[in-house]
C-alpha cells in the first residue's frame, strides 16, 4: 500500500501534526477533549443499551429513549473522531504499529456493524415491541454486545497510553 504509506507520512509531516507533537500543552489539551468526548459517547450509549436490555428507563418506549439520547452520542462521537484524528496524525506511524490502537479501531468498527445490523433487523419489528419493558432477544443481544464493545474501546484506549510513549 504505497499510497497509504505516502498519505501517512504526508499527514505526519504536516504543520498541524508538528504543532500537536511539539507543543507541551496542545497534546494534553486535545487528549482531554478526546477523553471528554469518549466519556459522553460511552455513557450515553450505555443508557440506550440498558433500555434495550430492559434494565433501565423501562416505562419509556425504546424510540423515545433513543430519540432523546442519541443526538448527544453523535455530537460527542464527531468530537471524539476529530480530537482522536489530531492525536493520531501527530504520531501516525507509532500509532499504526500499536496493537491496542488497531484493536480500538476494530472494536469501534464492530460496534458500528452491531448498530447497523440491529437497525436493519429491528426496524421492521420495533413498532411491535417499542413499548415493551423487555425487548426481544435480538435487541437485548445488540444492547449487551454494545456495552462489552465500548468497554473494550475504553480499555484499549487506556492501554495505548501504557504501550506507547509519545515522543
Amino acid at each position, binding site marked *: 500500500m504505497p499510497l497509504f504509506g505516502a498519505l501517512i507520512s504526508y499527514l505526519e509531516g504536516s504543520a498541524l501534526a508538528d504543532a500537536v507533537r511539539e507543543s507541551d500543552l496542545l497534546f494534553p489539551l486535545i487528549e482531554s477533549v478526546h477523553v471528554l468526548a469518549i466519556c*459522553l459517547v460511552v*455513557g450515553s450509549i450505555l443508557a440506550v443499551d440498558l433500555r434495550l436490555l430492559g434494565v433501565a428507563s423501562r416505562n*419509556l418506549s425504546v424510540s423515545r429513549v433513543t430519540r*432523546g439520547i442519541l443526538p*448527544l452520542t453523535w455530537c460527542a462521537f464527531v468530537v471524539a473522531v476529530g480530537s482522536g484524528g489530531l492525536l493520531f496524525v501527530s504520531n501516525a506511524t507509532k500509532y499504526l504499529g500499536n496493537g491496542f490502537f488497531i484493536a480500538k479501531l476494530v472494536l469501534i468498527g464492530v460496534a458500528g456493524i452491531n448498530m447497523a445490523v440491529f437497525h436493519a433487523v429491528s426496524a421492521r419489528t420495533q413498532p411491535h415491541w417499542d413499548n415493551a419493558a423487555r425487548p426481544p432477544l435480538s435487541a437485548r443481544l445488540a444492547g449487551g454486545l454494545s456495552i462489552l464493545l465500548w468497554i473494550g474501546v475504553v480499555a484499549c484506549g487506556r492501554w495505548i497510553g*501504557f504501550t506507547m510513549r509519545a515522543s
Partner: protein
Amino acid sequence: MIEAALNDLSKWLAGTALSNTIQTAAWIIPTLQTIHILTVAVLFSSAMLVDLRIWRVTQRDVPVADVARRFLPPVWPLVLILAVTGSLLIVGEPRRSLLNDTFYIKMALLAAALLLTAGLQWALASAPDAWEKSGARRLAGRSAAVLSILIWCGIIFAGRFIAYTQV
C-alpha cells in the same frame, strides 16, 4: 508542613504490600484506570443528559423531574466505585496525586459537582415543577446546568493533566 506530612504519607503508602502489588503487576493500573474512566463516563453523561433537558435541548417530551429520576440516583453508588478505584490508584502511585496540585483541584471540582447533583435531586424531589414556576427559577436551573457541565469538563481535564503535572 502539610507538604512534609504528605511526603511522609506517600512514602509510607508506597512501602505497603498493596502498593507493591499494584506497582509490580503491569495490568492492574490500566485496569483500574479503565474502570475509573468508565465510571466517570456514566456520571458525566448522566449529568449532561439532565442538564441538556433543563435547557430543553433533548428529551423535551419527558418532564425534567422524570429525567432527573432516571439519571441522578445511580450517581451515588457509582461515586463509591470512583472512590475505590481512585484510592487504589493513589496507593499504587502516591506521589503522582498526593504531591500534585492538579489532583486537589480535581477533588474540589468533584465535591462541587456532587453538591450540585445533591442539590438538584433535593430540589426536584421536594417540588417536581420547581423549575418552571417563574422566570427567575428557570434562570437558576439553567445556570446550575451550565455550571454542572463546566465543572464536569474541569474534572476530566484535571484528571488527564494529573499525568502531565506530577513532580
